[in-house]
């Protein structure tokens, strides 16, 4: 029997495969297709205090081995989430991680206080790295001090472990990681999308209504993997890796680089069953390498 369970900041996950924020909505759609209790956990769409419609179309564009999105944090808002979406998610035996995003520190604080009163939330993922809103979001994640400050404020009110989700759009992601950990982050997840754009040369216009968007998918995987490796080597808290994970072998790479768990994002669009295939493939990999526990491969890439 191979043990797939991992531990992230005191939260036991039955397996290390989570669905990434914004790539699973609030679980309803996928639950019609398969039993989402099989997942290690799910990360909700990022919530803001008030609901957001998001950017007008076009909101997505396909790129070479990847895609750009400028969804603009469409979400139902914290109230509707707590009253309608969370009760639904509680029915499932999987870790529910709630992603929150704001344009001011007070918004993160107000949401954290609301979530502190709720049962059935395994952890909070603080999205301080969304590239798709004009004000805030990424501004917190882009610099050491504001990143640390917002995490400290969330941490003071949070009843659940706090995961800081980092942006790759920075000079040195390790510095941001150190800052959020020094300010109490219980875990780190990385990477959010890379800022990118595509131009239609006939119309001489941007292909996204928001001009720029966030690049995800296989195209960003090597970048993400290197960042996960560097951060996991520096901080003492668990790291959740993501960025273009499509298959179990991609997930294994992230775990060998030091990730204690992985989030699957864009792959859920291409194939709804991708997270389950990754879980099965992970088990096969461990069997093939005579490993008893997935924990035994975390950070086990050879250094020399």
């Amino acid at each position, binding site marked *: 029997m191979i043990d797939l369970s991992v531990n992230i900041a005191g939260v036991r996950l039955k397996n290390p495969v989570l669905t990434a924020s914004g790539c699973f909505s609030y679980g309803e759609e996928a639950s019609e297709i398969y039993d989402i209790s099989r997942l290690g956990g799910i990360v909700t769409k990022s919530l803001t205090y008030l609901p957001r419609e998001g950017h007008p179309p076009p909101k997505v564009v396909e790129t*070479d081995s990847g895609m750009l999105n400028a969804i603009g944090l469409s979400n139902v808002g914290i109230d509707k989430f707590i009253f309608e979406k969370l009760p639904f998610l509680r029915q499932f035996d999987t870790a529910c991680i709630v992603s929150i995003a704001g344009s001011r520190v007070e918004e993160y604080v107000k949401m954290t206080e609301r979530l502190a009163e709720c049962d059935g939330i395994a952890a909070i993922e603080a999205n301080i790295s969304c590239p798709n809103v004009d004000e805030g979001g990424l501004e917190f994640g882009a610099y050491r001090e504001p990143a640390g400050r917002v995490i400290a404020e969330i941490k003071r009110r949070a009843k659940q472990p706090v995961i800081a989700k980092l942006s790759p759009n920075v000079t040195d992601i390790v510095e941001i990681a150190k800052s959020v950990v020094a300010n109490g982050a219980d875990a780190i997840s990385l990477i959010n999308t890379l800022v990118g754009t595509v131009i239609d040369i006939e119309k001489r216009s941007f292909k996204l209504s928001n001009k720029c968007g966030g690049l995800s998918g296989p195209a960003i995987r090597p970048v993400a993997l290197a960042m996960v490796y560097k951060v996991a080597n520096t901080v003492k808290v668990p790291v959740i890796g993501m960025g273009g994970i499509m298959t179990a072998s991609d997930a294994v790479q992230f775990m060998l680089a030091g990730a204690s768990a992985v989030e699957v994002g864009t792959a859920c669009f291409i194939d709804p069953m991708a997270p389950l295939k990754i879980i099965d493939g992970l088990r096969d990999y461990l069997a093939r390498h005579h490993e008893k526990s997935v924990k035994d491969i975390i950070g086990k890439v050879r250094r020399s």
Partner: protein
Amino acid sequence: MFDAGDIATAAKPGQFIQVKTSDDCFPLWPRPFSIHDADPVTAHLTIMFRIYGSGTAQMAARRPGELMHLFGPLGNGFPAVDGNLDVILAAGGIGLPPLYFLAKDAVEKGLSPHKMTFIAGAKSKLELLNEARLFELGLRPVICTDDGTAGRRGTVVDVLEQELAPRQKVTVYACGPNAMLREVDLLLARGNLSGFLSLEALMPCGYGICSGCAVRVHPPADRGPTDDRCDYHLKRVCIEGPVFSAGEVMWD
């Protein structure tokens, strides 16, 4: 034509499937195709497509007997045709396949083909899609081409306007390029007529999780304050569509 198992059994007119030809990363997304025909007995499912980009080019290169990833049926589909109402089906170019399926379904459920007016249009004769199948259903389709190389000269919208003129009460089912649907929607609004429009959109996921295909619709009256203070509401074409009621969409 696919050997599509349960997808063919469950398919309803106006629904679509996502097709991914290979596990390759390029093109990354599956491609959505409206269902042209589905036979629950043989489990055969038919789509029609035009080679447009890399996804369709890859599909065209596949040979009989090869496997592809299919996902579906997806989307809300058309409401069933009400035999008591006067009905016009307006198909522009690649909008024909789902409307054929709708008409076939209605005929199979006992509706006389003569109760439906089917307008099938394209830019020119060569781009007309398989209109012969419409005659097989017993329909007497009104064919039109922009350049007059087949049927009446004019667009689907021109012909629809002519067909609407003598009628008081009619329901229109339309599918075609979004530019055509916009015109149809305006036409229906002017005549205060009801109708259903099946929209085309790029879709990364096809089942509602990514919101990438969302279109602007008029916000519900009871919508409270929003963070981004938009004058629009968004609906996902893949799961809240692809069929929208006339007057619902905010066109660009």
